């Protein structure tokens, strides 16, 4: 099977306009006859629901939370990029495109990334019109800051709560459509299967998490906006309910999973404090604008940080990358933190942390300026660690944060299953092998507000839909397979909790499919994951009533899926013997330890086709072509 990206022809800057013109439309009077199912209410899902509702489609929106406003986009702190060039500092659509494709280590499609950069400017306009309270300068203009790996100030922000404000903007727009009757909201629902009938995605099976009832929902197109798979690692910055289930079950129904090995490890998180820990907390990388990262020069130096004199400190990012310094992209910062800790120069009780020090910035700017910029982050740090970052440097360590891989989609954001569209973090398309800071919010909203209204119309307007109701055999079969899976979970009656098993999987992935990977470790992981999966199905315990709110049953189902997904993740990492972006293979590095790509052999998207649990999936390649940018070795020196 050849993967057709359906990238439009023509010059880069005109592709999207040409494509919009060539796309089919749906007459306003006919739109209500089409039902669009949207799973997930984060930035991508909520923005898609509101914009499709405004256009008059019949939208059904589903989320696992008690309210759509709780989706994990809400936790994004730092900001959102847009090529507005409000600061007159040399930004442009082309520069944002270039930075994003370079930041992604040349593993994304030029046309998609260019469209993202073009749409970035509309997003800010839309959000301001919704009343998103972005930070302002004294004169009343929007303020911008420079953010992870960019040499221009193009990041818009609302304190350290940008994701919250953007999500609430999208949520409010969506609730407006609920009031108008174009969007029907189904909270407390977990999608457990995709229904494919006659080769088209025609609906979903979901479980009502409050009553345990399985429900069938039919429609003409399904939009998965269900986020990434970082929680496969157990400890991550993701919310505890974030999961891979919807994407994985769609994968089992035929959708290809692309580039799962591209995982982003965020350099500035609060380090692990003990085994009880349920999640890791991110400290926005905006902190790196004013904080300086260092470790002691000496190994095993246990003196408190304030007693280590200046000349015995190693500001290793400033030393190794003089032009970007502390602002190198996330993958570079994370890898360097790991290597200084591996050298035995890590700090804190575990030795798995580095300092992020604000004392110079406080001296230069004063405590008040720092408090105005980062007050809420400093408070959060203090609550969690009981240490005062105004007086002591923060201790930080990398943690799993974002996943660039996801379900394969074409330029229309449609997977290889006709009708199944995938938006936001759940797809693989725009960030390549590494995402730059403040680009996730941009992509989620671009997909939902500005891409999908055109591409879904193109699909609906150009497709014949045979009558498929919820009594169709495909729905019956999907529901009974979901029921069988739930029964199987309940029938094990062992003694291990889903959390114990999940934690073991997470440790295994972090050790062998984490920041640095090699063939031996990956092979070991591929041997251990099936063993752990067998243990899961022999030792799992799920007490309580399945026909009631049963969080443990929900969790068990998700862990079962991580245990299948993890194998594909490790396999993808093993097959890609080059290093690129967040995927670092020990075997492929430059003499000074930087990631070395292998464009000759790996300039392609790896899309995996499901062949059965424990069966090796089939690899399909979509070659990447670069007409406008020339892939070079990334350098931040």
């Amino acid at each position: 099977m050849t993967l057709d990206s359906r990238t439009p022809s023509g010059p880069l800057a005109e592709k999207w306009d040409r494509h919009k013109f060539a796309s089919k439309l749906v007459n306003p009077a006919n739109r209500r006859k089409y039902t669009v199912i949207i799973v997930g209410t984060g930035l991508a899902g909520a923005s898609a629901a509101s914009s499709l509702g405004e256009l008059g489609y019949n939208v059904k929106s589903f989320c696992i939370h008690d309210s759509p406003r709780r989706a994990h986009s809400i936790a994004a702190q730092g900001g959102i990029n847009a090529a507005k060039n409000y600061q007159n500092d040399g930004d442009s659509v082309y520069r944002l495109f270039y930075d994003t494709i370079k930041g992604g280590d040349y593993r994304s499609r030029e046309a998609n990334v260019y469209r993202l950069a073009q749409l970035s400017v509309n997003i800010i306009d839309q959000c301001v019109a919704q009343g998103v309270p972005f930070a302002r300068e004294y004169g009343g203009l929007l303020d911008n800051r420079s953010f992870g790996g960019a040499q221009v100030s193009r990041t818009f922000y609302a304190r350290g709560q940008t994701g919250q404000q953007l999500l609430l903007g999208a949520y409010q727009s969506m609730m407006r459509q609920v009031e108008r009757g174009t969007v029907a909201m189904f909270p407390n629902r977990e999608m457990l299967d995709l229904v494919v009938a006659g080769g088209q995605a025609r609906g979903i099976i979901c479980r009502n998490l409050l009553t345990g009832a399985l429900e069938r929902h039919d429609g003409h197109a399904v939009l998965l906006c269900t986020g990434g798979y970082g929680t496969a690692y157990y400890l991550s910055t993701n919310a505890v309910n974030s999961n891979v289930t919807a994407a994985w079950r769609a994968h089992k129904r035929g959708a290809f999973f692309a580039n799962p090995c591209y995982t982003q490890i965020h350099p500035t998180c609060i380090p692990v404090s003990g085994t009880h820990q349920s999640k890791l907390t991110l400290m926005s990388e905006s902190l790196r604008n004013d904080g300086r990262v260092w470790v002691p020069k000496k190994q095993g130096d246990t003196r408190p940080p304030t007693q280590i004199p200046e000349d015995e400190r190693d500001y290793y990012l400033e030393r190794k990358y003089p032009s970007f310094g502390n602002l190198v992209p996330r993958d570079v910062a994370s890898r360097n933190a790991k290597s200084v800790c591996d050298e035995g120069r890590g700090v804190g009780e575990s030795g798995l942390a580095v300092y992020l020090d604000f004392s110079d910035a406080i001296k230069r700017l004063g405590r008040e300026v720092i408090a105005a910029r980062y007050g809420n982050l400093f408070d959060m740090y203090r609550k969690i660690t009981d240490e005062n970052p105004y007086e002591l440097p923060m201790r930080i360590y990398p943690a799993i944060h974002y996943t660039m891989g996801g379900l394969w989609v074409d330029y229309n954001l449609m997977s290889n299953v006709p009708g199944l569209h995938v938006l936001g973090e759940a797809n693989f398309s725009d960030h390549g092998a590494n995402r730059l800071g403040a680009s996730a919010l941009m992509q989620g909203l671009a997909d939902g507000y500005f891409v999908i209204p055109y591409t879904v119309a193109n699909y609906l307007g150009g497709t014949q839909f045979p009558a498929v109701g919820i009594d169709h055999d495909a729905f019956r079969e999907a529901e009974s397979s979901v029921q069988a899976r739930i029964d199987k979970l309940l029938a094990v009656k062992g003694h291990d909790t889903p959390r114990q098993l999940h934690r073991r999987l997470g440790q295994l992935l972090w050790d062998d499919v984490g920041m640095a990977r090699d063939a031996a470790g990956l092979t070991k992981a591929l041997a251990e994951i099936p063993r752990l999966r067998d243990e899961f199905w022999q030792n799992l315990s799920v007490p309580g009533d399945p026909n009631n709110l049963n969080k443990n049953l929900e969790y068990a189902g998700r862990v079962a899926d991580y245990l299948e997904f993890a194998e594909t993740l490790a396999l993808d990492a093993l097959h890609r013997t080059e290093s690129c972006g967040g995927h670092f293979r020990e075997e492929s590095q430059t003499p000074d330890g930087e990631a070395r790509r292998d464009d000759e052999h790996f300039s392609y998207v790896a899309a995996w086709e499901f062949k059965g649990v424990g069966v090796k999936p089939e690899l399909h390649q979509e070659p990447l072509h670069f007409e406008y940018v020339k892939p070079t070795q990334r350098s931040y020196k």
Partner: protein
Amino acid sequence: MRINLNIWRQAGPDKPGSFVAYVAEHVSPDMSFLEMLDVVNEGLIAKADDPIAFDSDCREGICGTCGFLINGLAHGPMRGTTVCQLHMRSFKDGDTLVLEPWRARAFPIVKDLVVDRSAFDRIIQAGGYTSINVGGARDANAILIGQSTAEQAMDSAACIGCGACVAACKNASAALFTSAKVSHLALLPQGQVERYGRVVKMVARHDAEGFGSCSNEGECEAVCPKEISITNIARMNREYLKATLLKGR
């Protein structure tokens, strides 16, 4: 540390509930409160008992999913903190803690410490937005907004919709929640067009959902994890009054 817990257990919305005693052993001061409950639940699951249901998601204080009363205080004893960001170092070895769900007519109990807060969504649905369709927005810098106005709007917009304000209020009023959204949009130029219609509709929906009236005790502000000020309620009342006076104009 060893912590004694008295936790409200209720199997479902129509089932009777009662307090059940548990003991959390080997509690580390670095644990968050919810991580301590996770450990208690792990013990229950291992014994094939039904674990205690409580809601949480981001566990960094921003999603608003978590929340219950600890010894009568919404989100526990620490000011400006959700229960997921409360750490066990706030308690002493041997403490006895009583955990109850939010209690309000408009927040029916789902199970144990989980309540149904969908009434909040319906209040927003009534008017907590600007009626702007995607596509027609003008350039973001076309309207200047003074920094202090933007900051004030942000203070109000910081609400996470957790419901602590309702739980703390003796009237179970959602005035703080509703007024935070009314204020956020009334302060900004983008919210002006629908300013008076919005407050009337949102207040009407607030009342229809069964929330009580505000009698200015300030309990809501005291427990709000985002420290939303009751100034918002004063502003909402002013907006409401103006809207009523301007009716028909």
